[in-house]
């Protein structure tokens, strides 16, 4: 976290030096700052900061891919003359146990068409997910565990 | 900054360049001081011990401002300040003439007394949940209504005092209050919304909101615009605020439900704002339309006064009696509007002064009587003369005042209105006024003998409330009642000035738009 702050500080300093506090300039300063921090990676301790950054980007990419793909599937489904639906709610056993991770996972699942987080069990061991196609819950569980859940854990641990 | 450095902008086409002296700010004080006081009171909401002092101080400051304002207006003519220095009609003008300034003064006087009375009547809970802020903002709204020269701004001030009155009305959440407040709120909301609708149409017609601007454009538009319908809409909207028959349901439904000091403030002040607005719009903006409508207004006036006082006769609860007396007084004031003559309007204005003070005093008196006798019901409240002759003295004076009998203040405005009715060839209106006076004598005379003279019929409270603060309040209010009754000349001349202020629209226009500034 400290590194984030230092990076932001560097971005602000950059903006001050260049005398322009436009958004683009600050973003540019942030990138420059990240580069500068990368240069001194040995002094600041680890590369985790940057690795995490890449993992986050990967997570985002996965999400966007899933989003567009499944949105398309839903669109096709609802526009097809005969809808073949096998909806249902299945319980997904959570590996993630931090509030933040569970929340993120649940939201990503919700945002991905075809699945919808309905609730978290009171012991926080299960996430109940409604799927528009619940013919094979185990496959869905596997997809999520391998997909979003793994990437989230990677990005935030 | 739009203006680049060194780029000079000519302000003379947009702004009033003459400096505004601190003395000009007298016109702002009656509104700004209560607002600021109310805001501060809210910030120290939990320090309930400070509230009464702050509120009384704020209102006294506003009162001083009002006195200064009226003195200046009487001395130098109307005082105009256009907010933000923008030339009228672009900015919102406050335009205090004798009518607005005098009514604002009397209203503030009444409020000071109520604030004083409330120090004993309103406990810590009432204070914490906003009694004094409500009161302050209500007076800001009332003052703003009397002083503004902009019709939409008038709407805003109406809403300010309306919502404040809601707050005062529900404070305590007794069943009766909630019931009364529901009717009060919904009906009044309809009334103000009609006012807003009429104002929207007025704006669509005139393209302006400044009342002086409207007045000077009205003649040019009369051929071409639906001004009569607009005037009727204003008559209806303000008639509701003034509690004119047949749109006065909200008043008897609610005025007896809140704390007595709230009822006193309402009974004194609120309906008069409606009457004022009727005077301001119909007399100043739509004189030809007023003439068309005068027959209708006369009937409304007569019905309001007679039905009002009949309502008073029918009630058992003293507060409800007073609510109907308020309505009856509104009818008397409307009579002057119907006549539209200088003397009639002066009578209306004088009656408004009188009614503000007397109705407030009567409600406070009812509160004192309840404190001593333990009831508001005419079938229970009794035996006060034996224990508290001073109450009897105040009661007698105030009832005489309300009935329009000497030596109290109600006589002279009635005389003026009766005379004006006869002069205008409307003897039946004079008859209605006198008959109302007679029925008021009967109604309040009955109240007097039942509550004051009649020996105790039920046991009073074990520990009667101390009436002394009430006596102080009543004394403060009775003084002007007697003075106006014995030597009404100064008040009449103020009322006449006020009447001529609205009758002489060109003069008003001339003060708002000196040397024809802007078009």
């Amino acid at each position, binding site marked *: 976290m400290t590194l984030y702050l230092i990076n932001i500080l560097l971005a602000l300093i950059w903006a*001050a030096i260049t*005398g322009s*506090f436009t958004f683009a300039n600050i973003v540019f300063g942030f990138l420059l700052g990240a580069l500068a921090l990368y240069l001194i990676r040995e002094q600041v301790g680890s590369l985790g900061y940057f690795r995490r950054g890449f993992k986050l980007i990967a997570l985002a990419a996965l999400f966007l891919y899933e989003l567009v793909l499944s949105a398309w599937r839903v669109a096709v489904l609802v526009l097809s003359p005969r809808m073949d639906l096998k909806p249902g709610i299945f319980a997904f056993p959570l590996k993630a146990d931090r*509030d*933040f991770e*569970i*929340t993120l996972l*649940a*939201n990503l699942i919700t945002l991905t068409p075809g699945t919808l*987080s309905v*609730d*978290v069990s009171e012991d*926080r061991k299960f996430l109940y997910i409604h799927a528009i196609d619940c013919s094979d819950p185990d496959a869905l569980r596997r997809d999520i565990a391998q997909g979003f859940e793994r990437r989230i854990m990677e990005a935030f641990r | *900054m739009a203006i680049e450095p060194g780029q000079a902008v000519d302000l003379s086409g947009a702004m*009033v360049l003459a*400096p*505004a*002296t*601190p003395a*000009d*700010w007298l016109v*702002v004080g009656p509104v*700004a001081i209560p*607002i*600021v006081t*109310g*805001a*501060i*009171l*809210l*910030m120290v*909401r*939990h320090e309930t011990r400070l509230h009464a002092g702050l509120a009384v101080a704020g209102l006294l400051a506003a009162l001083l401002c009002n006195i200064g304002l009226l003195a200046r207006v009487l001395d130098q003519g109307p005082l105009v*300040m*256009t*907010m*933000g*220095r923008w030339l009228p009609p672009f*900015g919102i003008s406050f335009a205090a003439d004798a009518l607005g300034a005098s009514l604002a003064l009397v209203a503030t006087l009444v409020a000071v007394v109520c604030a004083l009375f409330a120090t004993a009547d309103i406990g810590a809970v009432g204070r914490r949940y906003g009694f004094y*802020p409500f009161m302050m903002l209500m007076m800001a709204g009332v003052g703003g209504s009397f002083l503004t020269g902009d019709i939409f701004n008038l709407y805003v001030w109406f809403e300010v005092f309306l919502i404040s009155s809601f707050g005062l009305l529900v404070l305590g959440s007794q069943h009766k209050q909630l019931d009364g407040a529901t009717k009060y709120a919904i009906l009044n909301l309809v009334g103000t919304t009609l006012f807003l609708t009429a104002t929207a149409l007025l704006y669509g017609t005139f393209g302006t909101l400044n009342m002086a601007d409207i007045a000077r454009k009205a003649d040019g538009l009369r051929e071409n615009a639906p001004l009569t319908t607009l005037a009727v809409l204003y008559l209806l909207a303000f008639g509701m605020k003034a509690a004119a028959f047949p749109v006065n349901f909200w008043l008897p439904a609610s005025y007896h439900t809140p704390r007595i000091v709230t009822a006193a403030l309402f009974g004194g002040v609120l309906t008069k704002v409606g009457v004022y607005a009727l005077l301001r719009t119909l007399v100043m903006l739509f004189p030809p339309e007023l003439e068309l409508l005068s027959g209708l207004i006369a009937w409304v006036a007569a019905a309001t006064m007679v039905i009002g006082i009949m309502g008073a006769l029918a009630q058992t609860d003293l507060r409800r009696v007073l609510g109907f007396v308020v309505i009856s007084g509104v009818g008397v004031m409307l009579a002057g509007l119907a006549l539209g003559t200088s003397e009639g309007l002066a009578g209306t204005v004088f009656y408004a002064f009188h009614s503000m003070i007397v109705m407030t005093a009567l409600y406070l008196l009812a509160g004192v009587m309840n404190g001593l006798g333990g009831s508001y019901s005419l079938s229970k409240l009794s035996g006060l003369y034996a224990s508290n002759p001073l109450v009897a003295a105040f009661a007698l004076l105030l009832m005489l005042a309300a009935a329009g009998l000497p030596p109290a203040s109600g006589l002279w405005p009635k005389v003026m209105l009766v005379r004006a009715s006869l002069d205008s060839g409307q003897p039946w209106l004079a008859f209605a006024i006198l008959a109302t006076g007679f029925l008021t004598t009967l109604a309040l005379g009955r109240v007097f003998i039942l509550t004051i003279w009649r020996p105790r019929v039920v046991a009073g409270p074990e520990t009667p409330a101390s009436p002394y603060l009430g006596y102080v309040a009543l004394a403060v209010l009775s003084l002007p009642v007697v003075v106006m009754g014995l030597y009404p000349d100064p008040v009449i001349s103020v009322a006449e000035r006020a009447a001529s202020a609205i009758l002489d629209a060109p003069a008003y226009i001339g003060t708002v738009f000196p040397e024809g500034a802007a078009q």
Partner: protein
Amino acid sequence: MHTLIFRTIAPYLASLMVLFSIFVLLRGHNEPGGGFIGGLIAASAFAIYGIACGVAPVRRALYFHPMAISGFGLLVSALSGGVSLFMDMPFLTGQWTEIDVLGLPVDISTVLFFDIGVYFVVVGSITSIALALEEREHA
């Protein structure tokens, strides 16, 4: 409300909304927005926070009672209109000045403070309403 997901995200959302509300407030003079809309957004933020996490954290976060904030707002607005008394100008005349913040020229005006007052009034009152109603729910 009893939901982990909402409770977790609500504070962040609320702070984001408050930030956005300030943005809307400050640019109101040139673009759509202003004190009232900004205030409504901020009040919505507190409402969400309150619904998700309960009323007490919101009250603690605000420190002052919402109605006191509202009163403060009205005071600020009224007083910013009163500044012109000292300039021999009528009530509510806008006074503009330019000050230097970190070498940047920033316009400061009574009009801005007026709008900030509006913002506080709206935030305070609407939050007070929402919290009072929400609290009643759990009483």
